[in-house]
């Protein structure tokens, strides 16, 4: 239900360039917003400020050499990118991943979903104007997850941890007890965070009913992930098209109905709780044994094409690889979740004010590395 306020005053629209370097465009995203006073009448996004041409560079590198590229695509959740890419190449080369490798992959992917939602929710509050406090509270947990990944693969942001056929190194013995210690801390924190923020009058006023994305428009634009689930689409690849061993865990898919900024925020909070549930089940069942199928560092997959998609924290992340039998892929295409999720930005934002434009854009949670590739 949108109330219409007829503006009697005829004002002359002016173009405001919310430029590539803006404090809350999550990277180098540029919008030419046509404003009429404070009301946004039209926006025209301009991309390409972080287009590094990964798809072209990938055609000159071996299949293992591409893994560092996938870390830098959606740099807020590199583990999920690694997982998606490895699944696509394993489907192409027909490699069977041992049990322990699968479990390590699920644990790291779910930890990465927690870390990504931390920044997504925190950045959303920054765009609403809360001066960094909710962001820093959330960043503490991301630091804890950084420690866990640092223990696994030695880097805090670009992990380069998964390999075709499993993972690169085994879990150190103090990893699983640390995760077991981290999960109750996170649950306690999530309750405190909801108490801290969920009923804040100004946040509720800024987010309830703002930037509504209807279900039909979301499906028509191909939107996936928490943004789609907040509009009522009950579609989650971990349940509808279970890859790796997601069918062994029971968890449910949080959805909401009216698809406004508040629902996008709350779906992410609930998804973090579901990820904690999956992690609790996963760390109990990690078997021993090999963590990596014996696949050489330079492989020659048979000629052909394959597409594998996973439920990355931002939505459906897919890798379409065409191979001609040589050591490098013939064509390497990444389904850009963030770029496609932005497809409905224009419809969601028209008619709202400049402050809402920034807030709605923040609630979609995109990463420029994945948009521009």
């Amino acid at each position, binding site marked *: 239900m949108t109330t219409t306020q007829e503006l009697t005053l005829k004002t002359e629209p002016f173009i405001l360039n919310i430029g590539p370097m803006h404090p809350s465009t999550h990277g180098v995203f540029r919008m030419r917003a046509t404003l009429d006073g404070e009301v946004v009448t039209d926006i025209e996004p301009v991309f*390409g400020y972080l*287009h590094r*041409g990964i798809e*072209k560079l990938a055609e000159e590198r071996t299949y293992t050499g591409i893994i560092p590229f996938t870390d830098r695509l959606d740099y807020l959740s590199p583990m999920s990118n690694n997982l998606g890419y490895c699944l696509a190449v394993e489907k192409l080369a027909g490699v069977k991943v041992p049990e322990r490798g699968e479990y390590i992959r699920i644990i790291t992917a779910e930890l990465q979903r927690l870390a990504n939602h931390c920044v997504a929710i925190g950045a959303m509050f920054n765009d609403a104007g809360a001066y960094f406090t909710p962001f820093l509270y959330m960043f503490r947990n991301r630091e804890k997850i950084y420690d866990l990944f640092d223990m696994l693969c030695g880097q805090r942001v670009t992990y380069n941890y998964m390999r075709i056929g499993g993972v690169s190194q085994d879990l150190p013995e103090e990893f699983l007890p640390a995760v077991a210690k981290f999960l109750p801390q996170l649950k306690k924190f999530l309750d405190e965070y909801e108490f801290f923020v969920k009923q804040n009058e100004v946040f509720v006023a800024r987010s309830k009913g703002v930037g509504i994305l209807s279900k039909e428009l979301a499906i028509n634009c191909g939107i996936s992930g928490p943004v789609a689930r907040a509009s009522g689409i009950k579609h989650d690849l971990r349940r509808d098209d279970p890859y790796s061993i997601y069918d062994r865990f029971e968890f449910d898919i949080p959805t909401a109905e009216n698809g406004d900024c508040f629902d996008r925020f709350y779906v992410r909070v609930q998804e973090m709780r579901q990820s904690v549930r999956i992690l609790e089940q996963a760390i109990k069942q990690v078997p021993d044994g090999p963590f990596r199928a014996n696949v050489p560092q330079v492989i020659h997959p048979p000629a052909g094409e394959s597409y594998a*998609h996973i439920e990355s924290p931002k939505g459906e992340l897919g890798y*379409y690889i065409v191979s001609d039998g040589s050591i490098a892929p013939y064509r390497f*295409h990444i389904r850009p979740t963030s770029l496609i999720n932005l*497809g409905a930005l224009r419809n969601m934002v028209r008619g709202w004010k400049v402050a809402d434009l920034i807030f709605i854009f923040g609630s979609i949670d995109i990463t420029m590395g994945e948009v521009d590739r």
Partner: protein
Amino acid sequence: MTTALAATEIVSQLSAQFPGAVEEAGTDAVLVKGEHLPAVVEYLKTAAGLKFDYLNFITAVDYYSYFEVVYRLTSLEFNRYIVLKTRCYTRNKPSVLTLTGIYQGADWQEREIYDLMGISFKGHKNLKRIFLWEGFDGHPLRKDWNR
């Protein structure tokens, strides 16, 4: 489990609806002639038993002798997917009919293919470069593009 719609079953239905549209049917990919593409996709989207309402992605591959544009559609209701392909054999100014009328999600992905691969989409309202700047010469993702 998102099952692939059996190509054989769909090919018979499609050739009944649009004679001559389907060139060949691979294991799970259906090769459609360029000019019939929007009609076929419209039919797949609206037909009762099919309901392919979700466009996963569009991409293009340069096979030197021809360009191949790959579409992947999913039906959220019946949890099925289908891969459509069209080919255009000319190397200078290849063009395919646009799907922006049917799927709004196709808009930027088609612009990206135009920008990086050089395939123009007839009927696309705002076909401009999306990633590179206007003065950039050539389309980098083509196999014969050198720096």
